[in-house]
């Protein structure tokens, strides 16, 4: 049975959703875990909430040629944002130095050289608004491809790429001032 058939069966009888749950749970758990700053218990809750929303709304899912995982990523992305909105205390998310190094490398390749220290770079990312910092996070810290990010935001791959590099350019410009 292929995935499209399983989805159609799950629309009729939710017990078939279990196959999709088993297949994608680890993927979504790891995505949420990295975005929440490595908190296992909260990750478990947010992941369950993601699958509950998916199970409730699977009737609305239509196959537009994108992988089913991108639909789940989109729900998980929204659930993580809702979680950050609800928690009153500021939560610290750790970034590896290698991820910041990758960001600088990719920026240089796109002629946006970032010569600032890691501390200054993090400060600049923290000053971005939520939507822009989410893009930077998905691309450089979660190492997602532009195609995967574009699928989450329901935009084209080219405009996702352009948006990301514009954010880097903006950050670079603001340093000069």
């Amino acid at each position, binding site marked *: 049975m292929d995935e499209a058939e399983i989805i159609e069966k799950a629309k009729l009888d939710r017990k078939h959703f279990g196959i999709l749950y088993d297949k994608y749970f680890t993927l979504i758990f790891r995505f949420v875990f990295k975005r929440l700053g490595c908190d296992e218990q909260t*990750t478990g809750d947010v992941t369950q909430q993601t699958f*509950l929303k998916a199970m409730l709304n699977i009737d609305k899912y239509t196959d537009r040629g994108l992988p089913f995982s991108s639909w789940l990523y989109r729900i998980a992305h929204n659930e993580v944002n809702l979680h950050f909105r609800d928690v009153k205390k500021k939560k*610290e998310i750790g970034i590896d130095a290698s991820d910041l190094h990758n960001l600088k490398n990719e920026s240089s390749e796109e002629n946006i050289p970032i010569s600032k220290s890691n501390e200054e770079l993090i400060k600049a990312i923290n000053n971005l608004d939520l939507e822009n910092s989410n893009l930077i996070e998905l691309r450089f810290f979660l190492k997602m491809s532009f195609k995967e990010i574009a699928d989450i935001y329901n935009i084209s791959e080219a405009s996702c790429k352009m948006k990301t590099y514009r954010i880097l350019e903006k950050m670079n410009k603001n340093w000069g001032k």
Partner: protein
Amino acid sequence: MREFKENKDKNTELPSDSVINKYKDFSRLHANYDKVTKRPKKPIYKDPKLFILLLLILLLCIVFFSE
């Protein structure tokens, strides 16, 4: 609210499959789904408003047909 900071000491490790499997529970998810979608079955005698309404309808019927 969130704030990024640099991990200076070590690389963050993703949880292992065995740790993730601890949180994987489809029966709990299905139970939550049922809780959200299925209306609780409350007997009429436990719903005072509905009970009074049905009693009134019954009394009106008796009065109407007895005349």
